[in-house]
C-alpha cells in the first residue's frame, strides 16, 4: 500500500499520466466528433497507425515536427474521406467499412515502411517534441511539473478539447453537427446538408485521430515500430462512451485511464511487481475499458441517430 502512495505522490507519475493521455485525448476527440454527427468510425485504430507512420516519416524525410503533425493530419483526413464516402452518401455498413479502413490504413503504413526502409531492424529515431515549460505555473508543487512541463503537442491536445466543446455547444456548426447525430430529418428540414455535415465531421475527426497517432512517434517514442498503437484506438471508442459523448468528460476519462496505465508501469517495479506477472499489469488497461463500457452503458445519452444512415426522401 505504501508503495502505491509513494508512486501517487511523485510529480513524475502525474506528468507521465498526462503524457500517456495526450494521444488518447486527440483520438477520443476525433471519434467523439464522428459519433456526435452520427457515424461510428471503426477506422480509428488504423488511422492512428497511419498518423504515427506518416508523421514520423515526414520528419525523417526533413519536414519539421509541426510539418510532421500536418502530414499526419492530412493522411488521417484522406482515410476519413474514404470512410465517409462509403458510409454517408451510400449508407454502407459502418462496422464493415470501419474495419476495412483500419486494415487498409495499417497495412498501407507497414507496406510503405518496408518500401522505404527495407533492410532496417531497428527503426531510425527522430528528434521528438521537447518539453515546453510554462514559467511560474511550472513551479506549483506536484501539479506544476505534471501539467506545465509538457510538450507543445500535449498543450495542443487540451486546446483541442476546449475548441471541440465550445464548437459543439456554442456555435451554429456545432448545433448542426449534434442535430445530424440526433435527427438527420430535422437537419434536412432546416435546409442543411446532412451529407456535408457528417462527411465533414468524419474527415476532421479522422485528422485528429491521426494526430493522436503522430503523438506516439513524434513525442512519446521518437520512432515508428509495428504494433505501436496496440489497441489504443479501441480504447478511445470506449472512452467516448465513458465520457457520455461530452468532450470534457471524455478528456477526464482519458486522464483517468492514462493514470491507471502510468500506475501499472510503476507498480511493476514495486514488490507487487515481483509477485504478479507483468502480463497481468498490461491487461489492466483493456479490462478497465470493458468495465468503463459496462458502467456507462445504462446511463449514457447515445446520439439517437448514431449508425443510422440518412437517405433523402425515404418514406
Amino acid at each position, binding site marked *: 500500500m505504501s508503495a502505491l502512495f509513494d508512486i501517487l505522490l511523485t510529480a513524475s507519475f502525474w506528468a507521465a499520466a498526462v503524457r500517456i493521455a495526450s494521444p488518447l485525448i486527440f483520438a477520443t476527440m476525433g471519434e467523439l466528433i464522428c459519433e456526435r454527427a452520427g457515424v461510428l468510425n*471503426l477506422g480509428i485504430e488504423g488511422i492512428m497507425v497511419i498518423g504515427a507512420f506518416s508523421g514520423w516519416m515526414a520528419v525523417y524525410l526533413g519536414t519539421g515536427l509541426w510539418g510532421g503533425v500536418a502530414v499526419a493530419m492530412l493522411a488521417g483526413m484522406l482515410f476519413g474521406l*474514404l470512410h465517409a464516402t*462509403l458510409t454517408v*452518401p*451510400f*449508407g*454502407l*455498413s459502418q*462496422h*464493415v*467499412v470501419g*474495419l*476495412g*479502413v483500419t*486494415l*487498409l490504413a*495499417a*497495412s*498501407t503504413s*507497414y*507496406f510503405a515502411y*518496408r*518500401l522505404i526502409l*527495407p533492410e532496417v531492424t531497428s527503426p531510425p529515431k527522430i528528434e521528438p517534441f521537447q518539453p515546453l515549460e510554462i514559467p511560474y505555473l511550472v513551479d506549483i508543487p506536484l501539479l506544476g511539473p505534471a501539467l506545465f512541463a509538457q510538450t507543445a503537442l500535449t498543450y495542443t491536445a487540451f486546446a483541442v478539447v476546449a475548441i471541440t466543446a465550445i464548437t459543439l455547444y456554442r456555435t451554429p456548426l456545432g448545433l448542426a453537427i449534434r442535430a445530424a447525430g440526433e435527427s438527420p430529418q430535422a437537419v434536412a428540414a432546416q435546409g442543411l446538408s446532412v451529407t456535408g455535415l457528417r462527411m465533414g465531421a468524419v474527415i476532421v475527426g479522422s485528422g485528429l485521430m491521426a494526430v493522436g497517432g503522430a503523438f506516439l512517434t513524434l513525442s512519446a517514442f521518437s520512432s515508428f515500430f509495428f504494433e505501436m498503437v*496496440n*489497441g489504443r484506438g*479501441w*480504447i478511445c*471508442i*470506449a472512452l467516448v*462512451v465513458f465520457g457520455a459523448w461530452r468532450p470534457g468528460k471524455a478528456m477526464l476519462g482519458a486522464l483517468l485511464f492514462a493514470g491507471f496505465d502510468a500506475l501499472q508501469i510503476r507498480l511493476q517495479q514495486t514488490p507487487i511487481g515481483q509477485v504478479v*506477472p507483468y*502480463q*497481468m499489469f*498490461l*491487461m489492466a488497461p*483493456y*479490462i478497465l*475499458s*470493458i468495465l468503463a*463500457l*459496462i458502467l456507462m*452503458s*445504462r446511463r449514457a445519452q447515445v446520439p439517437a441517430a448514431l449508425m443510422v444512415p440518412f*437517405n*433523402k*426522401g*425515404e418514406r
Partner: protein
Amino acid sequence: MRLEPIANPSLARSLGFPAAALVATVVIASLLAALAGANPLATLGLIVKGAAGSKFALLETLNRATPLIFTGLAIATAFRAKLWNIGAEAQLYGGAIVTVILGTSALSGIGAAGLPLIALGAMVAGALILLGPVMLKTKFGVDEVVTTLLFNFIMLLLVSYLLEGPMKDPMGMGWPKSAPLDRALRLPRIAEGLRLHWGFGLALISATLIWFVQTRTTLGYEMRAVGLNAQAARFAGIPVSAVLVKTALLSGGLAALAGFSEVAGLKGHLSLDLSPGFGYTGIIVAMLALLHPLGVVITAIFVAGIFVGSDSMSRAAGVPTYIADMLLAVALLLMVAAIGLTKFRVVRG
C-alpha cells in the same frame, strides 16, 4: 442525389459490380507492385505461382486456408445475426490453449479417440470466451464490437503469461512455447505423403454443416430473422436473446476450432505466433463470401492463396509482403461498395 432501392436486380448487375471490384483490386495490386519497383505483371504472376503453381504451393495454400475457413465461418455465422464478433482471435487462442492442455496431460494415453474430445473442449472454450461479450450486450446493452476487440488483447497477454509460466515447455530451450502434443493426439494427414492434415477436412465438413443449419433448421431460420430484424423477430415470438447466445456459442466454437486445427494438425504445440491475425482475416473471408458458408470455403482458399503467394513473391521480387494485407483490405472495401451498388441505384433528386 439520393439512393433508390432496386426491386429486382438483374443478374448482370448482381455479378457485374462484384466482378468489377475484383478487377479493380487486381489493378491496384499492379500499381502497388510498380510502386515497389517491380514489374506488375511479373509480380502478379509470382503471386499466382506461389499460391498454386506447384503441388507444394497448393498444399501450403490449403493448409493456410484451413484456419481461415473456421474463422470465416465463425464470423459469417455471427455477422448474419448482426453479432459483430471481432474477437475470433481470442477464441482461436482459447481453443489452442485447451487443445494443448488436454493434449499434453489430461488425455495422453487415450490415443486418437481423444481427438474429438479435445475438439469439443476447444469449442467450449471458444464459446465461453464469446459468451462474455454477448451477455454484456444482451444484459447491459454494451456494444460487442469493442468488447470482443479488447478481449483479443487480453487473451494474447494471457497466452504470453501461460507460455512463459505454467505451460512452458521444459525442453523448449528458453523459447516461450508449450510442450508438444502427444503424438497420438495429432490430427493425421489426409493422405500419405501429402502435407495436408485432417483439419482441412474438418473445415469442409464444418462449412457444409453450417450451411445445412442455416438453410434447413429452425435455428438457422431464427438466426437469420434476428439478424435481419430483431424487433420483428421478437414480436413474432422468436426468443432473441437465446438465439444470440446460441449464435455466440456456435461462432465462438468455430473460431476455437481454428486454434485446435493449427495446434493439433499443423504445429503440434502452442507459441505466440500461432495466429498471424486469422481472426481478423476471417472478417475479410466472410465478407467476400457475402456471409455464405459454402462461399467461405472458396474465399478462404483465395485469401490464403494471396498470402502464400505474396510470401513467396516477396522472397523473389522484393515487394513487401504487406501488399497482401493491403489488397485484401481494398478488396473488402470494394466488395462492400459493389454489393451496395447492386442493391441501390443513385438517382438525381
